[in-house]
């Protein structure tokens, strides 16, 4: 595409301006304020129409910005040739879009052409106005702060920041993490909160269910309390009754005491009797028996005091022997025979008498001893059958028997008397009725009972208070449950929203990454491919390439160097080459013009000459519109 002519009737500060364009290089050497920006804008507006028409800012609103200073018809026309056909775009603008007009005229026929519409810019170049501007306009300002790769950022990322893509991804990732990371983030927090709330809900429901049980327990306690209170009333009545008849009770009590005393005495006697009796196997023997045994003991005593010894037969034997001897002697000694015989006879008689007497005495002694033994045994036998344990001394035993007998009699008498007295007294005073009731309702016992009942009532009251509190809590639990349900709903809504937002952010990130890849695939490869060729337009024999980040790398003095290591003039040339590459890559249909707005100011004369010579001789079929305000920079 080549611009052939433009006519500006009124546009900004330009009025009745006309220019015939060369198909290759068009140089405008004009002072500042000439209106070159206005001319550039006019060319763009012819293809794309006015931009930012709704913006309030004049710098964004081209309708306001280029309103003719001098008034008059706002607009003009532009002639161009594409695919060997010449057209005229004619646009005029009103105060509002309603007043705008567009026409496309076939310059050959002079007829209105329908080959393109009002969107002729996009239709012709296949690129929107922003891209068009970025690609085709190379101004002095951008040349001064030229960082070659930044034009690509500007072109694709719409920013001066080469890291615009990275920043975009970082922002999305940051927000993504705020929503959800491994163990934190809003979604994680909400889910946790929901779990807690749902647990609270379950717990509260359970506790509310317990209300029935609590009520039953409370009713049971109430019944128990009622029962105890009834008992307490009875006890208190008894206390009252007992306090009224204290005097009577005192008398009765005294009588009871007396009776108790009698009973106690009888019991003491009984104990004494028992103490006596426990010595005896079969109870105390009667008096007769004791006498009998006592007399036996007396006899044995007497027997023991009588010495009944058995004598020995020594004397009789000796006498007998002597008598024999005498006999013998008598026979032996005849002289004394008579005498011996008489002695013998006397001795024999004496011996015999002695023998008989001794024998008889011994018999008596033996019989006495036997009788004594027998008596002894009998006494022993008696004592053994009477006593549990008995003394060896019979006398002592008899003494004990006698003593016990008399004591027993005495105690028995006492016992009988006391028992009889106690019974008589008991019956006489009718202690069976009075005594029992007083015994049962004695003040002390009643007081104790009252205390016990009161304690029980107190305990039940405390339990009741606690249960009532729990029941009251259940009321508050029910309110809390309602609140928790509301919170659950709130958090479920928050969760849904958070998840939707998170998903949208994740998708947006993926799409941006994919978009960058697509652009890389679509444009950057082509730009890279054309860059070296275009660089040779401005540099001789240099090796250069664009890396993945679109940083320009040029070999200089055998080393690969980044473009920003070069002088500003050299960078300008590099950027120019890059721009040609961009135009080659992006404008697939029609190659537009390129506007160079005083970009060579920072080139030294030699570089300027080299670059501009190359431009002039370039085989590139890109129409150049060059503005400068310096003669030295005209080529």
């Amino acid at each position: 595409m080549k611009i052939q002519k433009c006519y500006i009737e009124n546009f900004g500060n330009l009025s009745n301006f006309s220019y015939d364009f060369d198909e290759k290089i068009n140089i405008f050497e004009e002072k500042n304020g000439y209106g070159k920006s206005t001319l550039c804008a006019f060319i763009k507006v012819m293809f794309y129409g006015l931009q930012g028409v709704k913006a309030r800012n004049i710098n964004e609103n081209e309708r306001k910005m280029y309103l003719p200073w001098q008034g008059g018809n706002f607009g003009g026309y532009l002639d161009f040739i594409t695919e060997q056909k010449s057209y005229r775009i004619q646009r005029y603008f009103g105060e509002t879009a309603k007043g705008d007009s567009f026409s496309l005229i076939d310059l050959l026929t002079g007829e209105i052409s329908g080959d393109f519409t009002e969107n002729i810019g996009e239709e012709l170049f296949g690129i929107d106005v922003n891209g068009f501007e970025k690609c085709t306009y190379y101004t002095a300002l951008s040349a001064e702060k030229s960082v070659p790769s930044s034009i690509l950022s500007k072109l694709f990322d719409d920013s001066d920041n080469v890291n615009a893509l990275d920043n975009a991804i970082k922002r999305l990732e940051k927000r993504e993490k705020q929503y959800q990371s491994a163990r934190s983030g809003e979604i994680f927090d909400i889910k946790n909160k929901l779990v807690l709330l749902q647990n609270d809900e379950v717990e509260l429901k359970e506790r509310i269910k317990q209300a029935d049980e609590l009520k039953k327990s409370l009713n049971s306690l109430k019944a128990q309390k009622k029962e105890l209170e009834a008992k307490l009333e009875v006890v208190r009545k008894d206390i009252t009754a007992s306090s009224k008849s204290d005097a009577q009770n005192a008398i009765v009590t005294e009588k009871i005491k007396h009776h108790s005393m009698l009973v106690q005495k009888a019991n003491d006697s009984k104990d004494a009797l028992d103490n006596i009796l426990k010595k005896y196997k079969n109870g105390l023997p009667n008096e007769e028996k004791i006498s009998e045994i006592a007399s036996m003991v007396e006899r044995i005593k007497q027997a023991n005091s009588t010495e009944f010894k058995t004598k020995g037969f020594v004397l009789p034997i000796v006498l007998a022997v002597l008598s024999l001897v005498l006999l013998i002697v008598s026979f032996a000694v005849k002289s004394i025979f008579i005498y011996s015989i008489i002695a013998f006879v006397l001795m024999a008689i004496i011996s015999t008498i002695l023998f008989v007497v001794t024998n008889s005495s011994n018999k008596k002694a033996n019989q006495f001893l036997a009788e004594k033994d027998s008596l002894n045994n009998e006494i022993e036998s008696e004592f053994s059958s009477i006593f549990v344990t008995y003394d060896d001394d019979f006398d002592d035993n008899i003494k004990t028997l006698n003593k016990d007998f008399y004591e027993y009699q005495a105690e028995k008498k006492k016992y009988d008397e006391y028992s009889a007295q106690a019974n008589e007294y008991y019956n006489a005073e009718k202690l069976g009725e009075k005594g029992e009731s007083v015994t049962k309702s004695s003040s002390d016992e009643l007081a104790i009972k009252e205390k016990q009942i009161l304690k029980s009532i107190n305990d039940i009251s405390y339990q009741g208070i606690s249960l009532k509190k729990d029941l009251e809590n259940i009321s508050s639990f029910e309110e809390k449950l309602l609140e928790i349900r509301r919170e659950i709903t709130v958090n479920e809504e928050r969760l849904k929203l958070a998840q939707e937002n998170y998903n949208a952010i994740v998708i947006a990130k993926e799409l941006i990454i994919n978009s960058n890849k697509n652009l890389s695939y679509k444009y950057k490869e082509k730009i890279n491919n054309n860059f070296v060729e275009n660089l040779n337009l401005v540099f001789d024999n240099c090796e250069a390439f664009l890396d993945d980040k679109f940083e320009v790398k040029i070999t200089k003095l055998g080393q690969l160097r980044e473009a920003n290591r070069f002088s500003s003039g050299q960078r300008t040339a590099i950027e120019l080459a890059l721009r040609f590459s961009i135009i080659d890559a992006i404008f697939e249909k029609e190659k537009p013009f390129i506007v160079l707005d005083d970009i060579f100011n920072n080139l030294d004369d030699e570089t300027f000459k080299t670059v501009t010579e190359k431009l002039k001789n370039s085989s590139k079929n890109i129409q150049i519109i060059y503005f400068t305000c310096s003669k030295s920079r005209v080529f």
Partner: protein
Amino acid sequence: MKIIHTGDIHLNSPLESSFTAQKAKIRNNEIMNTFKKTVEFAKDNGIKVVIIAGDLFDCNDISRKTEQFVFDVVSSNSDIDFLYLLGNHDDNVKYNAKLPDNLIILKDGEKHFYDNVCVCGIESYNNIDFAADNYNIAVMHGEISNGYGKYEVNLKELQNKNIDYLALGHIHKGGNGKIDDKGVYFYCGVLDSRGYGEYDKHGFILVDTDSKKYDFVCMSSRIARKIELDITDLKSNLEIVNAIEEKVKNIEESSIVKVVLTGSFDEDLLKDIKYIEQNFEDRFFNFKVEDNSVIKIDFDSYKNDISLKGEFVRQVQNGEYSDEMLNKILIAGFDALNNEEISI
């Protein structure tokens, strides 16, 4: 005779999630009071029958406080019969105390006569058996439809069955129509609004069986209002606030107000919903902004946009996303590419 037809009171409801706990409590008490006032109306006007067409309670496990309140109100008006049809929310309430004698659960097909007026709860179409010479009221809880679901009311099945009045519950907005030449149906709607979704005035239907007049009696203690605002031409939060101000200036301060933003907005409008709400939240009982606006996007204008943004827009356009998701993706993407904080 006159009969009150009410229903969908939803006592013991957790209420609107945008209410604070305190406001929810206040509103619950107000709705309970509205029920009490309805009964007082019946008493003051000699009305002997109150029909509750379902959902007296919002759930089956109601609080003791609520149960006690309802029972007290009912039992202290023992000369009024409360004919209560169970709804889908309160079909199995476990009561702690015995039901008052005059709170009568309507059983399917069981008729209740008041002179020549017959009231019958209907769950099965087979149990419809009304005599022609009575004024017959059928009570159902469901929505008019062609289906036969549990909470669907098939009008065809009710036609020519001598029904003079079909007392319906379930739909929270009032409405009415004809059953056949003889009978009409009415949705009583909720008795008092619980919040957003139950807009404008609510109350009960006063049925006059003699004159066959059916009057709506408003019982709203608070009215919920929904305002739609198209923000397409608005450029800032302040403009949105001003536009809302214009729309709500005549709304009572006791109201529950929701403003729904619609239309589209430019990507450089950074909406701050919290800021907008803060301008009005002290003025009304409750104020909420719902943002249904979508980012303004002319997909055609991005067709030849060689920038990353252009490619991103084309990718979004080619994806299969719901309108809501597409809007969110665009907002997130634009915020990111504009190097702004992500606003969603």
